[in-house]
């Protein structure tokens, strides 16, 4: 052993590089999650489809030769190159209508998801973190909102507020935040008892610091998964409200409103009915798959069955 210099630190059996131990990059939690998400095939395909659909609605839509509500000389035309989704009885281009409806429906549902998640997470985590009477009062209020029948209250409120998209979003978010607060409270309750929170408190961290630096990052996974599912739920509720006539009103348009307008002429102009419905399904389906992928990515144990 001529070159054995350091005998106190024997080298590993097949070292590629003696310093490997120190150059291996540390992977953060976020990187791990991202890697797992990228490997989830259904979620990745869904993400691509959803991004294409969003681009179609927001980039192709405004550039398309017809605007929402614009009347063209062709009426009741079946799908063709000039009108990919056909036209309705007065000659409105259904492609422009569907893209416009997709924009409205997406805006409403994203607004609902963000607003309900923000309010609900704040509400639930404050209740769960402080516990005691604060928890009791806050959660009773949330429970009360949960007992209200969604479609009835949403229809009643939306009927009065009128058909602007952000008001519809406000109404739906005003009912959905309670669901989020339940989830957030559950997560916080289980995290609160964890050792690292206790350690932070023992080190003298303030409540605000514990919530912002320790609770929120750890609860992020569940909340993000919930946020995606909320988008899908909100789009279904918004389109249902618009279908019933309590949601978005003309001259605005929504995918639900388009289905409503098309239902009487299903035999003569089926294209008016199928395309908006298809868009709702694609949006809700891809978002559900993305939510599934996120859940697996954040918590790989959850989906695996104990062997």
């Amino acid at each position, binding site marked *: 052993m001529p070159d054995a210099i350091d005998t106190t630190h024997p080298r590993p059996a097949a070292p590629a590089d003696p310093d490997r131990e120190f150059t291996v990059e540390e992977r953060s939690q976020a990187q791990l999650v991202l890697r797992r998400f990228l490997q989830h095939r259904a979620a990745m395909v869904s993400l691509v489809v959803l991004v294409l659909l969003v681009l179609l609605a927001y980039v192709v839509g405004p550039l398309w030769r017809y605007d929402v509500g614009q009347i063209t000389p062709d009426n009741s035309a079946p799908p063709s190159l000039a009108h990919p989704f056909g036209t309705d009885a007065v000659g409105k281009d259904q492609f422009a209508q569907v893209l416009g409806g997709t924009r409205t429906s997406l805006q409403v549902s994203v607004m609902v998801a963000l607003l309900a998640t923000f309010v609900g997470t704040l509400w639930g985590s404050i209740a769960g973190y402080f516990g005691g009477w604060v928890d009791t009062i806050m959660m009773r209020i949330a*429970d*009360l909102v949960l*007992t*209200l*029948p*969604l*479609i*009835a*209250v949403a*229809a*009643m*409120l939306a*009927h*009065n507020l009128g058909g602007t998209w952000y008001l519809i979003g406000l109404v739906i978010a005003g009912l959905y935040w309670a669901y989020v607060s339940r989830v957030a409270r559950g997560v916080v309750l289980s995290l609160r008892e964890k050792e690292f929170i206790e350690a932070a408190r023992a080190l003298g961290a303030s409540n605000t610091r514990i919530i912002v630096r320790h609770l929120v990052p750890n609860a992020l996974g569940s909340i993000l998964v919930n946020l995606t599912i909320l988008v*899908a739920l909100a789009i*279904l509720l918004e*389109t*249902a409200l618009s*279908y*019933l*006539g*309590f949601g978005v009103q003309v001259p605005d348009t929504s995918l*639900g409103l388009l*289905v409503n307008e098309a*239902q009487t002429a*299903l*035999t003569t102009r089926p294209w008016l*009915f199928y395309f908006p*419905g298809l868009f*709702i*399904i694609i*949006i*809700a*389906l891809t978002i*559900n*798959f993305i939510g599934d992928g996120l859940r697996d990515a954040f918590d790989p144990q959850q989906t695996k*069955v*104990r*062997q």
Partner: protein
Amino acid sequence: MLLYAVRRIVISIPILLVSSFIVFWLGTLSGNPLTPLLLRNPPPPQSVLDAEAARLHLDEPLVPRYLAWLGGVFRGDFGPSVIATQDIGEELATRFWVTMRLIIVAMIVALVLAVLVGVYTAVKQYSKSDYAATFIGFLFLAMPSFWLAILLKQGGIDFNTIVGDQVIYTIGASSIPPPDGLLARVADVAGHMVLPTIALALISYAAWSRFTRASMLETLNSDYVRLARAKGLPRRTVMFRHALRTALIPLTTVTALDMATILGGAVITETVFQWRGLGDFLIESIRQFDTYAVTSWLLISATIVIVLNLVADLLYGVLDPRIRYA
């Protein structure tokens, strides 16, 4: 168990009261029930407006109005409707069973389908049929219920056109006038129920079959099922007596929690198929700012949800012998 049931009902009374008050309050905020009168041309004289406002108690403050309505409910009077000739209580009573038979049959169909598919896909995990069922489940979860219902309705109409006869009913809850004879009448009602039931059941089926599959997988991989198999028990016994029975317990909870959603789904199904049920009543009442009618609807539907929840909880005890309601 009876004591438990009574206690549960007593606990739910304050919830009913508070949520009905909120709905009442939102209802009064939601619009002026005199709007159709005000829009009339020529405008009605002030005395008519005042009389109508007095009839609907619009001249009284919110809380006394609510309390007066609540007092009336106990005497069987659900308050004055915006439609002067309509008795809210009577209307709700006739519509109640129309909606209930739809909800109950749809729930049973959805549960049976969900358990069958859920168990099958759990046993054949990662097989082609499992993937197919998973995809179909996701598809139904993403499908707007009104779209599916209209599609089914159109399918029924197309089928009738092809056959050249009214085989599948697509409009209404029963024929008007009803056919003679009890048997013919039952067949008529059942015929009208086919499509709405499918539309309502498929939406719940999607979530429930996914849930049954997950729950079944967990029990199938548990130690006591492995033990039962190791003992040499027949596969059928292990499946049904050991695995399925345990797997079904959480499903009762999920079913109970989904009850309110099903009632909401019934609103849409009834609208599409033009049933004169509770859902249709709600939509009409909201359109006319009929606060008393909407609040009465809430009271009835919340009671349905509470009672069906209770039934699910009591079933819990039947399925799981460890749970005893003392």
